[in-house]
């Protein structure tokens, strides 16, 4: 096994070889069962949350290879077709030169339809079992030629290759025509989902091995489509007959496509589609994400012949462990004084809750005022810092392994805590530095907005630090919700900043239960990699703080401190249930 190769490469999933996707991917059955279902699904998550990896893993190409690798029969009942939209075809602007909205829509749908059909034929052309089962080739050719209105080149042995060549020729002809001076930006020979994709699927289902197949049309990076393509896609999602195909649409949350269809209607969650939030809200040991993270890292280590568990590979600083135990003991004593009668009903839970709330805060409070930053190490710390996003999990691991590789010639069995700490602090500082220069990296973020975002986060960290050191009841609440949203004008302006921060992956959002029964609210989770260089604890607690929209806006615009009180009003704290698992 080659230990000189860094096992924590986190290149975009589209750039990974098929074998790596099979090797690296940790199946999350919560996602797989939805993706493999006949329902229309939206997968939501910012960059690095694992959307593309999930779609690729569930694509037929990968499942086929996996079946062969594991010597199990190939399942033809679900055919996953990965349809990437992050390519220059989806950035073409010529449709804007058309004054007619209908024509804009037609051209956009033409590109999207050809992309989908091309993805289908590219998937199927390499499956010998399907090719072998084409018995009535002549009929299939005639059927598709009738749909397309042309004659295909039958010299290709492979039926799907013949169609692919035609589609590829057609996409080139369309672009050449539209790009030509003097030609209209409208192309007359356009195809739509209804005129090509649906009939095409019906034709190929005549191949007996595909007769009962359901096509999972997995549209990736849908946020890159133009408005007309989005409306077309929504119209297809609203299409009632889902026996032959369904859509799985991956998109970022910021810039999430609208729900409007081409005819001006809307698609509705629950009725037309379901949403899955790929960003995991909880990273605590025992949570789904912690388990997934453990499996991901373990698999990566196993691939290069490293046997320790992730917790053994990333050990915690021993002094930190001792100090945390000491803090726990101290807090437990306090809890016992508070709830002396442990036999009294509920007191055991109260003691445990007390210890959970305050032990970590006690550690930070007991440190000398002028002490250096606390040490950041240990696998659970790395999982916390990831904020539930897989790429954020792999990034520090990559750099830690790289640092250890540079200094160690022999086999690597663990990453020393001081290396982990050094990398975490460096990556944290880099993230703050990136935040200072957001205007150079995120489109439509100007220098003033970048400055405001920095000020906002700076003041949030100051608030969290005060809470950690002084708050009497919820010292480690590091998630916030926004109150007084009736101040709509301020809320709108603040949201613009928060959306840029989300695009830059400085901030994530979740939907959870509000204190008012039945209501839901959005809560904001700063990227926990921001915490270490500020000496904060990335291991939050299950609560969030309600912050006034005016205070947040003031912090952003005027660099004003967010007001702090060492106790919160009852309605400002929402104590979350440990099993609260709602998704947006």
């Amino acid at each position, binding site marked *: 096994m080659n230990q000189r190769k860094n096992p924590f490469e986190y290149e975009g999933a589209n750039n990974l070889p098929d074998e790596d996707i099979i090797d690296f991917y940790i199946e999350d059955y919560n996602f797989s069962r939805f993706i493999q279902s006949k329902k229309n699904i939206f997968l939501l998550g910012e960059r690095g949350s694992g959307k593309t990896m999930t779609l690729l893993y569930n694509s037929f190409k990968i499942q086929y290879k996996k079946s062969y690798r594991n010597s199990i029969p190939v399942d033809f009942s679900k055919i996953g077709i990965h349809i990437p939209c992050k*390519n*220059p075809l989806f*950035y073409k602007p010529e449709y804007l*030169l058309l004054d007619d909205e209908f024509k804009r829509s037609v051209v956009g749908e033409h590109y999207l339809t050809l992309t989908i059909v091309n993805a289908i034929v590219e998937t199927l052309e390499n499956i010998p079992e399907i090719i072998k089962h084409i018995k009535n080739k002549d009929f299939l050719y005639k059927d598709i030629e009738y749909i397309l209105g042309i004659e295909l080149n039958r010299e290709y042995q492979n039926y799907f290759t013949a169609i692919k060549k035609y589609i*590829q020729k057609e996409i080139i002809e369309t672009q050449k025509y539209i*790009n030509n001076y003097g030609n209209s930006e409208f192309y007359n020979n356009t195809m739509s989902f209804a005129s090509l994709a649906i009939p095409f699927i019906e034709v190929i289902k005549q191949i007996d091995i595909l007769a009962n197949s359901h096509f999972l049309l997995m549209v990736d990076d849908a946020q890159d489509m133009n408005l007309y393509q989005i409306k077309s896609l929504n119209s297809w999602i609203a299409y009632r007959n889902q026996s032959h195909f369904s859509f799985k649409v991956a998109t970022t949350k910021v810039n999430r496509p609208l729900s409007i269809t081409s005819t001006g209607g809307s698609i509705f969650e629950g009725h037309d589609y379901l949403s899955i939030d790929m960003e995991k809200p909880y990273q605590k040991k025992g949570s789904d994400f912690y388990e997934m993270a453990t499996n991901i890292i373990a698999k990566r280590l196993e691939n290069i012949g490293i046997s320790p568990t992730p917790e053994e590979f990333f050990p915690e600083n021993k002094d930190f462990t001792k100090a945390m135990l000491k803090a726990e003991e101290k807090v437990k004593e306090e809890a016992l004084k508070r709830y002396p009668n442990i036999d009294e009903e509920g007191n055991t839970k109260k003691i445990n809750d007390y210890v959970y709330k305050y032990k970590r805060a006690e550690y930070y409070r007991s440190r000398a005022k002028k002490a250096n930053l606390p040490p950041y190490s240990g696998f659970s710390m790395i999982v916390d810092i990831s904020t539930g996003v897989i790429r954020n999990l792999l990034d520090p691991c990559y750099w830690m392994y790289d640092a250890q590789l540079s200094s160690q010639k022999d086999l690597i069995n663990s990453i020393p805590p001081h290396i982990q700490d050094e990398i975490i602090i460096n990556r944290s500082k880099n993230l703050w530095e990136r935040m200072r220069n957001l205007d150079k*990296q995120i489109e439509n*973020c*100007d220098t003033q907005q970048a400055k405001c975002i920095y000020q906002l986060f700076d003041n949030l960290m100051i608030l969290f630090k005060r809470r950690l050191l002084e708050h009497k009841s919820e010292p480690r609440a590091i998630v916030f919700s926004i109150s007084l949203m009736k101040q709509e004008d301020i809320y709108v302006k603040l949201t613009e900043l928060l959306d840029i921060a989300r695009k830059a992956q400085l901030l994530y959002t979740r939907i959870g239960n509000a204190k008012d029964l039945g209501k839901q609210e959005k809560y904001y989770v700063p990227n926990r990699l921001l915490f270490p260089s500020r000496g904060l604890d990335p291991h939050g607690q299950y609560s969030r703080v309600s912050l006034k929209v005016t205070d947040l806006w003031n912090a952003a615009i005027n660099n004003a401190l967010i007001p702090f009180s060492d106790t919160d009003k009852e309605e400002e704290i929402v104590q979350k249930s440990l099993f609260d698992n709602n998704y947006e």
Partner: protein
Amino acid sequence: MNDILIIFPSWEERSFLGFQKDIEKYQNLNKVFLFRFEKSAHPSETHKRISEIKNACLIKNIVSEDLSIPNTEVEKWRTLENFARNLDANTTIYIDITTMPRSIIWTLFFFFKQRFQQATVLYYKPREYSNEWLSKDPGIPQLLFKHSGIVEFGKPTTLFVLTGYDEDRVIQLVNYYEPQNVIVGECNQRSSCEYGIKPEVFNIDEYDATWGYDIIESKIKNILESSNLIVASLGPKTGAISVYQCFMKYPQIALAYVPCKEFNIDYCSGIGEEFIKTIKLKNV
């Protein structure tokens, strides 16, 4: 014959100083067209340069005409299309590209090549660049109308960028397009930024005899077989001309530009070396 000069004045000194050299060099100019955006950076300083240019035209008995270009992409395109269409077929075209936005340069070339055989391009370096920032607040990267390339299914995307002093704009392009490959032509020999993807880097001198064309063309032609190509020119304007010449030869490449909202008024000063080239627009 109808000799025209097209210029896009800005607040920079070389905008007017270059123009003075233009009208000394080309004594037969009939008309000067002064392009400007409806909303431009540093409007009062730019207006000052425009006045200087107009005065110089008056002194030399050259007719000058303003063309106000809308800032929106579609209107900008239509305005330039109409402008090119209304030129006399016997026009000899000189374009001072010194302070002309790249999207305007490329759009003009597109419309001119439909009707004219060639255009002469003039460019003046500044005497010096400041060490401060050059531009800020980039907008969304755009592919130019009718120059969005011929995309083929199954090919990865390569981003080919000629960098200038603003390396951060490269990061923005990489973040936006998320290409599988990045090729960077550096004229400053600065260390590459953290692009998030390891780029292939080559050195280029966009002020050499071919304005960098030879090396750009050789790089591009090697990539085209295997990649869909997006090309951006963020360095000297001479490189932007070479990029367009490559586009004329290989129309399957996509040309990208990044509109910026803010420019440092002091980012350069004075006037330096001049560069002149006549570009063939037909039969490339």
